[in-house]
């Protein structure tokens, strides 16, 4: 009973975050729809597709998280299955940030400031879907293997995801090519891992994006702990 009761606040925040991200996604699609409607242009409609792909890792991480409470065998199957899918689809979340490059080719139909706000909105949704889903997975790892393993996990996954973004942006592979086209994809990846310095663009992109994502992640994480500390502090002050 006590256990059930202490579970409540974090479930509540998880659900609220889900609703907020859903509302934010709907808003960004509405901004795009207004653009398409007034300019009668089909440009940027791919953002909707990219946003749907960005939601997959979030949903998979949630499935993995919830299934850790199931009985043992079922839990292992569901958690590891959804974890693998999560990892394959994770690069889609921060990927939306790279769509900013379309701003370099503006069209006369819509003012640039509108496209900037729209892209920020989509990019923000993708980034946060990635960050929060990574946090869900980190919690599972921390519970099973401890805090240090949790942070090693976060670093490794971030690096893999950044490489995945590169593969998607520049080599035009999709997450599902792991099943549909495994051999050419694997040779592309292995070539870059074995000879990192003959692919300077891959190396620069992956390293820069890994650091970027890690910093955002850690800052958000520390911010959470600060809220905890300052709330306890103000409760003490007022009592």
């Amino acid at each position, binding site marked *: 009973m006590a256990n059930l009761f202490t579970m409540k606040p974090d479930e509540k925040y998880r659900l609220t975050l889900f609703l907020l*991200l859903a509302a934010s996604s709907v808003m960004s699609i509405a901004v795009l729809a207004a653009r398409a409607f007034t300019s009668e242009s089909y440009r940027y409609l791919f953002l909707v597709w990219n946003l749907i792909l960005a939601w997959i890792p979030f949903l998979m991480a949630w499935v993995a998280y919830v299934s850790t409470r199931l009985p043992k065998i079922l839990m292992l199957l569901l958690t590891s299955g959804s974890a693998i899918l999560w990892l394959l689809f994770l690069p889609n979340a921060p990927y939306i940030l790279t769509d*900013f490059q379309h701003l370099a080719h503006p069209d006369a139909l819509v003012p640039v400031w509108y496209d900037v706000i729209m892209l920020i909105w989509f990019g923000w949704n993708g980034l946060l879907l990635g960050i*929060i889903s990574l946090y869900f997975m980190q919690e599972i790892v921390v519970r099973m293997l401890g805090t240090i393993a949790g942070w090693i996990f976060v670093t490794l996954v971030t690096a893999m995801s950044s490489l995945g973004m590169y593969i998607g942006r520049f080599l035009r592979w999709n997450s599902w090519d792991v099943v549909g086209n495994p051999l050419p994809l694997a040779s592309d990846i292995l070539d870059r891992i074995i000879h990192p310095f003959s692919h300077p663009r891959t190396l620069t*992109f992956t390293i820069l994006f890994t650091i970027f994502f890690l910093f955002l992640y850690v800052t958000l994480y520390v*911010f959470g702990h600060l809220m905890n500390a300052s709330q306890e502090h103000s409760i003490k002050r007022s009592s």
Partner: protein
Amino acid sequence: MQTLLKFTSEQQLRLRIFVLLVFMSTVAISMLVYRNATMDSREYRFLVFNLNLAWMPLILSTIIYASQSLPKPLNLLIALGGALLWLFFLPNAPYMLTDFENLLKNNDAPIWYDVLMIAWFAWTALLVGIYSIYQMQELVTTYFGTVTGWLFTSSIIILSSLGVYLGRFLRWYSWDILRRPEKIVTNVFEHLASPQNQRNFFLYIGLLSLLSLTVYVTFFLFGQLVNANKKDTTPK
């Protein structure tokens, strides 16, 4: 003794966020320096200036926050004067998001590098702004309660979006509010005489406010989630 211990852990977290933000700013500037050195280019140097301006609100809100331990009339004076100055400088933080529109005119470096570089600048500035608003919200909440705290944050975000508009479209700076306030007012009224500008004005401020508020609330909720989990896993 226990309160002292709790207090230092809070101070420690504040310091950690500060160091993280300084580090992110350093990496962003290094990316720009590296870009311009290797490409022999002079583009995008305004990003450094804009990032410096984006730091102003955080420096001001930290001063206000720290001054609250001073004796009574002094802390209120600093809070009121500082808060006004803070409000004038706050728009510089979200303003950096709009620097993405400069992607248009430049092509000295590969576009993916510029996207990542501007994203770095913009996100650092955004985090600086969010953390600064959070500090001020904490103060308002301590003095006037939670509801007032959120009313404060919502109105601040709308005012700040207005500030971004004044900066982006009418090219005013924060310090112009002190130097020639009357010119800003007449300029805004002239600008809003055209119905086209009027529509853009409300659309821009509405969209940017909604976006900023969503961003802020998501940060807040994520913080609460981390917080709830921490309590859940701390040994009893």
